[in-house]
């Protein structure tokens, strides 16, 4: 128990960060019209592609003779990039459909 508390205490900055970011995420999304649910989901999908940064860091740290890490890391970079690039492009294509038009209600 104490060990867990210590771990949290050592990472207090991160824990603050976590809590505030969760609240921010909830706040940012509320009040979204149903038409935008899917593009928003797709956009959010692209944003979590930021995980590719982690894959790059893994690769930067791997020593050139650690073939296992290199192979797995290489794969991680590819799939991560797929997530980012594919995600943003698909979202853009969806939103392209909502062309700017005089909006009357």
């Amino acid at each position, binding site marked *: 128990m104490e060990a867990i508390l210590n771990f949290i205490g050592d*990472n207090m900055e991160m824990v603050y960060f976590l809590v505030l970011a969760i609240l921010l995420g909830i706040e940012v999304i509320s009040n979204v019209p149903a*038409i*935008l649910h899917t593009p928003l989901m797709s956009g*959010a999908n692209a944003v*979590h592609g930021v*995980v590719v940064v982690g894959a790059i*860091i893994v690769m930067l740290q791997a020593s050139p003779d650690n073939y296992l890490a290199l192979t*797995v890391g290489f794969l991680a970079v590819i799939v991560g990039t797929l997530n980012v690039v594919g995600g943003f492009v698909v979202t853009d294509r969806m*939103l392209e459909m909502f062309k700017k038009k005089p909006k009357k209600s």
Partner: protein
Amino acid sequence: MSIHILEISYLIASLTFIIGLKMLSHPDSARKGNLIAAAGMLLAIIVTLTLYQEFDSGKALNYGLIFLGLVIGTIIGTIMAKRVQMTAMPQMVSFFNGMGGACAALIAIIEFQHHQHATVTGFDGELLVMLLGLLIGSVSFSGSLIAYGKLEGKIKDKVLPFNQAVNMILLGTIVVLILIQMVSGSSPVLFYVLLGLALVYGILFVMPIGGADMPVVISLLNSFTGMAAAFGGFLYGNKAMLTGGILVGSAGTILTILMCNAMNRSLTNVLLGAFGGSAGGSAKTGPGDQTVREISISDTAVLLSYSQSVVIVPGYGLAVAQAQHVCHELEKLLSEKGVEVNYAIHPVAGRMPGHMNVLLAEADVPYERLQEMEEINDKFANTDVVIVIGANDVVNPAAKNDPSSPIYGMPILDVDQAKNVIVMKRGMAAGYAGIENELFFYPKTRMLFGDAKATLQKLTAEVKEV
């Protein structure tokens, strides 16, 4: 010096994610918001590549391979995203989401290799974070691919015997193994067993959920991947990964709930309800024995031309047939004849919320013609003809008057209030929820069988003649 630039760049990237998501939730700014978030992502990747240094050795390695990976991913991702049909967007999102989950899981695998050499006494928080990243990433990966396969029609809805029980046991086993792993210290065997179990769990988790609920599941898996990315960020103390991941994790969860609300169902109901479990070829009772009445294209044309008001209810069938342009043409033609034509948009028509809006916007249908469910439901009583094009569950009266129906409680378009209902369908197959629709057997309903695009083309030609 460069470390500060790196940190500041991550801060900027985090801000673009927040602003981007915020802008994505308003129709006018959505596209710009997406581009802003993309620019932030590019910045995060570039500064990581150029400024991140292995602080121990002072140098970073393997640039060639990283670059190659980035290029391959970019090329494949762009081609896939550019080529995909508008109708196939949801499964594309699911596929990319699965890739993100895989990336998080792969990172956890490598970090575990490093971690094994470290000796930790007491509570090993880093190991826990790694395990959670691995498990959530894996579930998201296999689950997303199943969701992708289901929407592509490659995987059929299947409810395995005792599926829910098996899932609970599997989940319980995973939790127990995590605890064992945490107490006994890192064991590679246990680690890979956990990886395998998580992959299986992802498959079984999505397998029994019906196609109509897939967008909700994809949204949920999306927030899972967000969490997995956040765990990765925690591992490296990387703020950009943390913000991006947590933001998507929490925003994705809220979005999932919003989607459920749009269908008037709870998340547990979606996940455990096994929608359409008793579907398909079950005994033909009640309306199944009745016959439907067909209508010819020329009769339809006359009926439409002499109506005061017509409401078009588009559904997934319109999207599949790519009939949005013809549909718009018919609507213009009728308007020229003095008929008031509107579209009734059910919030979950099609395979994703907003699907119909996107589709009709592509065909240049004016915004003001698209009416939301709440506003148009009062108008059906004064409508002469409702044309239902490839929609089924969203107009099923069972949602109102059959408490045993799996879609009971879902708000529907009250098309049965209109004077005439014409249903365009390819055949008598059930809708995606796999249930009968008694609307088709109502006395005022007429069926117009055939491919939506071909039928609409013929109909448009006939209307011109009238």
